[in-house]
C-alpha cells in the first residue's frame, strides 16, 4: 500500500492542478496553480522517503522531473503565458512521471505518441509547425512500436528500427528538422518541459542488451558531433540550443547502453540534465524576452544590463556540459570510463562530444552577453528567480555529496 502512496498522491495533485488551470480565467492564477501543484509534488517526492515510506523502485528521477517542470513554470512570466502553456507543462509532467512509474516498453509505445500529440497541440498554428511535428511523431511512433512489439523483436532489423526511432525522438541529426523548428517557435517554458519529458522517455526504454551494439554506438557519437557542429555554426540562438539539447540526449542513450555502473551513471546524467538543460533554455528565453531575437553571428553584449542573468546562463550551461564539481561531471566520468574500457575509439568520440558541448555553451554565453553594448535600461533576473536558480544549483552540487556509497 505504501508503495502506491506516491502514485496516488501524484494523480490527485495532477488532477487538481488541471482542474484549477482549466477553471481559472486569470493567467496569474493559472501560473500559481501550476507552480503550487508542482511544488507539492516535489515536496511529496522529497519528504516521503525521509518519512520512512517505501517508494516504488525505479522512481529516482521523479524529483528531478518535477524540479525541471517547476523551473519551467516558474520562469514563464504570467504576461507571456497562456492556458495552453501551463496545461502543456502539467501534461508533460504527468507523462514523464507516468513513464517512470509504469516502466516497460509497452507503456513506451503509448507514451511516445502521447508526447508527440501534446507537442502537436502546443505548436498548433505556429507557422504550420504542427504538421512537421505530427508527421515526425507518426514516423517515430511507428518505428519504435514496430521495433518493440514486432514478433521479430530482438533481431538486427528491430534493432535498427529502435535506433531510428530513438534518433527521431531526440531530434538528433539527420532527423532534427522538427526539433530545431520547435525550438525556434515554442515558448522556452514549453521547450524546457518537453526536454524533461524526452529524458524520461529515453530512460524508460528497456534495451535489448543481447544485441551487438557496435553500429548503434558508432552512429550516435557521429550524429551527436554533427548536431553540435550545427549548433556551433548557428546564428540563431534557439537553433543552437536545439543542437545542444539533442546531443545531450544522445549521450544519455549511450550512457544507458554501457555495462559497468551503466544504470547509476545514466540515472545521474538524466538527473543532471533534467535541471540544467531546462535552466539553460529558460535563461536564454528570459534574455530573449528582454531584448528580442537573439543573434549569434556576432557578440551582442548584454552583460552590463543583465549581469545576473549572464551568470545564471553560464552556470546552468556549464553544469549541463559536465564542468568539474557538477553532477553531470560525475556521470560523464563514470560513463566515459566504462565506454573507454569497452571500445576506446568510441570513448574518444564521446570525449569530443563533451568538449564541443562545453564550447557551444561558452559560445552561447560569450556571444549573448559580451561585446558591443553598454548599459541599457532593462530588468535583470528577478531576485526570486535568481534565488530559485541558485537553489537548483546548490541542490545539484550537494546531491553529488549524498550519492549511494
Amino acid at each position, binding site marked *: 500500500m505504501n508503495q502506491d502512496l506516491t502514485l496516488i498522491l501524484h494523480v490527485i495533485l495532477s488532477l487538481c492542478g488541471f482542474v484549477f488551470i482549466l477553471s481559472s480565467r486569470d493567467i496569474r492564477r493559472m501560473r500559481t496553480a501550476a507552480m503550487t501543484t508542482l511544488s507539492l509534488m516535489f515536496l511529496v517526492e522529497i519528504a516521503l522517503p525521509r518519512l520512512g515510506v517505501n517508494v516504488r523502485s525505479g522512481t529516482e528521477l521523479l524529483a528531478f522531473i518535477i524540479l525541471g517542470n517547476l523551473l519551467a513554470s516558474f520562469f514563464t512570466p504570467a504576461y507571456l503565458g497562456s492556458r495552453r502553456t501551463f496545461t502543456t507543462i502539467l501534461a508533460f509532467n504527468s507523462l514523464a512521471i507516468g513513464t517512470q512509474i509504469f516502466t516497460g516498453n509497452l507503456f513506451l509505445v503509448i507514451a511516445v505518441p502521447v508526447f508527440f500529440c501534446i507537442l502537436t497541440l502546443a505548436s498548433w498554428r505556429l*507557422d*504550420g*509547425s504542427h504538421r*512537421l511535428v505530427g*508527421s515526425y511523431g507518426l514516423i517515430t511512433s511507428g518505428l519504435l512500436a514496430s521495433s518493440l512489439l514486432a514478433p521479430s523483436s530482438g533481431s538486427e532489423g528491430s534493432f535498427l528500427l529502435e535506433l531510428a526511432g530513438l534518433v527521431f525522438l531526440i531530434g538528433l*541529426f*539527420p532527423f*532534427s*528538422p*522538427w526539433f*530545431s*523548428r520547435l525550438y525556434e517557435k515554442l515558448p522556452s517554458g514549453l521547450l524546457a518541459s518537453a526536454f524533461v519529458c524526452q529524458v524520461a522517455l529515453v530512460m524508460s526504454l528497456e534495451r535489448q542488451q543481447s544485441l551487438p551494439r557496435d553500429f548503434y554506438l558508432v552512429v550516435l557519437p557521429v550524429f551527436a558531433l*554533427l548536431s553540435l*557542429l*550545427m549548433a*556551433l*555554426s*548557428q546564428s540563431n540562438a534557439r*537553433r543552437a540550443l536545439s543542437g545542444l539539447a539533442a546531443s545531450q540526449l544522445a549521450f544519455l542513450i549511450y550512457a544507458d547502453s554501457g555495462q*559497468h*555502473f551503466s544504470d*547509476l551513471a545514466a540515472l545521474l546524467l538524466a538527473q543532471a540534465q533534467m535541471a540544467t538543460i531546462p535552466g539553460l533554455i529558460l535563461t536564454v528565453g528570459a534574455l530573449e524576452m528582454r531584448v528580442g531575437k537573439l543573434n549569434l553571428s*556576432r*557578440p551582442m*553584449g548584454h*552583460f*552590463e544590463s543583465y549581469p*545576473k542573468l549572464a551568470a545564471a546562463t553560464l552556470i546552468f550551461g*556549464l553544469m549541463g556540459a559536465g*564542468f*568539474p564539481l557538477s553532477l553531470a561531471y*560525475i556521470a560523464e*566520468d563514470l560513463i*566515459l*570510463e566504462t565506454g*573507454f*574500457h569497452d571500445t*576506446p575509439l568510441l*570513448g574518444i568520440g564521446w*570525449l*569530443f562530444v563533451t*568538449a564541443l558541448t*562545453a*564550447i557551444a555553451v*561558452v*559560445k552561447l554565453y*560569450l*556571444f549573448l*552577453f*559580451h*561585446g*558591443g*553594448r553598454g548599459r541599457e535600461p532593462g530588468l535583470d533576473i528577478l*531576485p526570486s528567480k*535568481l534565488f530559485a536558480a541558485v537553489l537548483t544549483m546548490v541542490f545539484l552540487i550537494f546531491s*553529488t*555529496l549524498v*550519492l*549511494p*556509497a
Partner: protein
Amino acid sequence: MPNTLLVEGLAYLIFLPVIAAFLWLAGSMLLSRRPSEKSIVRNCHLALGTAFFASLLLAVAQPFDIGTEAVLGSWFVIGGYHYDIVMQTDLIAVTYALFSTLLLFLICSFSQRYLHKESGFHRFYLALLIFATGLLLVSFAGTLELLLVGWEIVGLSSIMLIAFFTTRPQPAQNGLWVFSIYRLTDIGLYAAILYLHSHSQATRLTPLDSVPWSGIGLHEGTQVTAFLLLIAVLGKSALFPFSSWLPRAMEGPTPSSAVFYGALSVHLGPLLLLRMADLISATPALSATLIAVGALTALVANLSVRVQSDIKSRLAFSAVGQLGFITIEIGLGWFELALLHVVAHAVFRTLQFLRAPSLLHDRHQHEALLGHHLSVEHQDHESTALRRFVFRLSLERAFLDILLVDRIARPVLAFARAIDRAERSAANFVCKDS
C-alpha cells in the same frame, strides 16, 4: 602519523581560505551586496597570504625527498569506484604553490589601483580567486583526476579574464577561440586518464625512488599515455602548433596578462611534464618530440617577437619562446633546471608585464623632459627573397593561425552551415501552407 596529520592540516589551510574568500565574494555579488574594493582586496590578501605561509610551513615541515600524500576524503564512492581527494606535497607542488600564491598576492595588490572604480572590479577578483583555486588544485593534485578538475577551473577562469571587457566584441571572440583550443587539447588529458584506468586501474601519482618528486609511474602502454598528456600540455602552454592563442588572449587587463602569459597559467604545461618525468625518461620518442616541439616553439616565437609593434605582444611571444626552452630542458631530462627556469621566468615576466603600462608613460615623460623624441635606429637591409620569406613567416606567426582557422575551423563550420540550410529548406517545405 603526526607528520601526516600536520600535512593534512596544512593542505586544508592552503585551500580553505581561498575557497572561503571566493564563496564570500560570489555570495555577496549574488545578493547584490557589493563589498567595498578595500574589503575585497583585504580578504584576497588574507586568503592568498595564508595559502603562501601554509605552503612555506609545508616546505619546512617535511623533507622534500620524501613527499607526503594527504588524503582529504572522498568526493564520491560508487561500487568499487572511488574519487578520492588526494594531495601530493612534494618539491614540485610546494614550489609551484609558493611562487603562485606570492605572485597572485602581488597581482592582487597591483590590481587594486589599476582597476580602481572599474565596473568589473568585483568580477576580476572573483575570477582571480577561481583561478587561484584551480592553480593550487593542479599543483597539489595527487591524482590525475584532481589535476584535471584544477586544469578545467584554470581554463574557465582564463576565459573570464580574457573576456573581462564586456563592451567590445573582440575579447568575446578571442575568449571563445582560446577556450576552444583549451577544451579540445584537454581531450588528451581526459583520454590519458581513461587509458590509465583501463590499463593499470590507477591514476594516482606515485612516488619515485630516484627523483625527489611524485609522478606518473611506468605502466603498460606508457608511450600512449605520455603522448596523450603531451597534447594537453601543447594547448595549455601555447606550444607549437597552438602558439597562436597567446597573443589573442591579450584582450584582458594588464594584471590578467601577467597571470596568463607571464607567470602562472602557461607554466601548468611544464608542471604536468615534470610530473611525467619518469615517462619522459623511459620514452626516447617522447623526449625527441619534446625537444623538437620546444625548438620549433622557440624559433617561431623569436621570429614573431621581432615584428611585433606593441609591448604586450612582444612580451607574450618572449614568454612563448622561454616556454619552448623550458620544454627542451625537460626533453633533455634536465628536470631540476626546468623547475628553476619556470620560477625565474614567472617572476621576471610578471615584473615585465606589470611594468609595461607605466613604461610607456615614463618614456613619454622622459621625451617631454628632453624636448624631443628618443631616436630609433632603422637599419636598411638589402631585400632578398629569403629575407622577405622570413619576414612574412614572422608576421604571419609561421602561418599557424591560418592553418587552424582558415584550413580547419572555417571549412568544418561551413560544412555544418550547409547541412543546416538543407535542414531548414526541408522543414519549410513541410510546414508551408498549401
